[in-house]
């Protein structure tokens, strides 16, 4: 993998940063299958591994990660199905929608239309069970995290940060401005496959 560098994350984790979009899922599979790492977590532009310093002193961990990454990866992710989510955008479900539209100098309708016409794809799951980071949002739309994260965001909420949507499968704390909510069951602990979405899933948003 070219251009990636390794950054320590405390005493028992290392991060590969600036990984190309598809590469990081492939390298994560290689790292996970090696059995050398306690956890392998894909981020938006990174792969973070946790190791056991009793088995693998920090310098040895770094060497091992460098070696595994330098071997390189090849392959392609399989094409994933399209999932359509129906999303409510009235104020109770979308407390930050009008603010996001205003910040972009457009009406709520224009803002929603630009999301509807975005080529959305689940980039990764993370943060919380079933939480999906969705890429492909119209690049002209701007917006950042809330200055003060909310302690409770309802399940099904859809957050927006420029370039991305974040879909909350469960109620929980969150720092993304909320621009809608879906009733779809995104996480079901009793299902054989508990997650509706997975990395690579293509998404279509329909506004209710």
């Amino acid at each position: 993998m070219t251009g990636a560098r390794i950054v320590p994350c405390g005493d028992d984790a290392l991060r590969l940063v600036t990984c190309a979009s598809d590469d990081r899922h492939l390298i994560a599979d290689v790292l996970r299958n090696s059995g050398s790492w306690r956890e392998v977590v894909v981020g938006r532009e990174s792969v973070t591994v946790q190791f056991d310093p009793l088995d693998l002193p920090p310098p040895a961990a770094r060497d091992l990660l460098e070696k595994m990454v330098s071997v390189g990866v090849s392959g392609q992710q399989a094409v994933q199905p399209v999932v359509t989510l129906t999303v409510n955008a009235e104020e109770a479900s979308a407390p930050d929608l009008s603010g996001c539209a205003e910040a972009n100098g457009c009406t709520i309708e224009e803002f929603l239309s630009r999301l509807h016409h975005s080529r959305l794809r689940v980039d990764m799951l993370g943060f919380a069970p079933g939480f999906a980071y969705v890429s492909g949002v119209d690049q002209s739309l701007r917006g950042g995290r809330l200055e003060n994260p909310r302690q409770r965001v309802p399940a099904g909420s859809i957050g927006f940060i420029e370039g991305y949507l974040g879909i909350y499968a469960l109620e929980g704390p969150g720092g993304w401005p909320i621009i809608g909510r879906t009733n779809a069951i995104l996480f079901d602990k009793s299902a054989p496959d508990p997650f509706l979405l997975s990395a690579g899933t293509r998404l279509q948003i329909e506004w209710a």
Partner: protein
Amino acid sequence: MTVRIIEAGPQATLQGAPRGAYRHFGIPAAGPADPLSHAIANRLVGNASDRTCIEITYGPFSVEFMSAAAVAFAGAIAPVSLNDQVKPFHHTLFAEAGDVLKLGRADAGLRTYLGIAGGFQGEDFLSSQSTYLPAGFGGLEGRALKSGDMVSAHDDVSCPQHAESTPEHLRFPLTHSFALRASQGPDYESNCRTLWTEHFVVTRRASRIGIELDGDFPDLGVAENLPSAGVFPGALQLPPRGRGFLLLPDCQTTGGYPHILQVNRSDRHLLGQLRPGDSLIFLQRTPEQAAEDLANKQELLGSWLTDFQL
């Protein structure tokens, strides 16, 4: 063996082995917030160190025994009684059917573990019985225990014949001041040096997900929206113009706020004992020093907790 919960206190949950290696699905580890005290409670009743215990977040807590059982408390020290007779903490206790076991409030520390011979039975989800409250899985119906709940223990382990006591040198004293060894996080900057000298205070915003800290935090020059990346318990995050947030076992698997410090694995078990109002300093270590600290502490524990890893 079954116990009936009489009083559960502010929050009591079943916690056993953490849910390992599922963070890439967004599934946090859960498990005991203070895994060392959890292991001690198990050891006192003859269990493997990862059997499921009741994690009691501050008393008062009480149970009635439906059948005879061997139990023990470890963690934040609080008064213990069996049928209103005072009993020792850090000690195996033998109860008969109908007996009532009570735990009062701790003066310092936040979490006490009740171990039972065989271990409590919780719902298994992804190879772990540990309760994860935000998603409602593991434990008893994925929720906190409440008055009237019946909680059973496995009976595949024979009751210990003799009472055991935690060795004095493994009874870590808890006060209202903590010093935690930590290493630089990936978003540490040169003006973060003040973190090593500043005192911080735990606010009321404290749960199994994380602990908010009040104090003087540096003004970071980094972008407010970092690309979300993997985080683990022990991370100290700093939201823009905000207070620091220390992550615990139920924390999110990825985060986008600057990750400035990481509490080292050697001392992470102490995070489960921080309560609102406690003060805290961070002691600077390099990852190499941290590995040595960990090996030393592990050796100290290993003489009595033979199967436990920090």
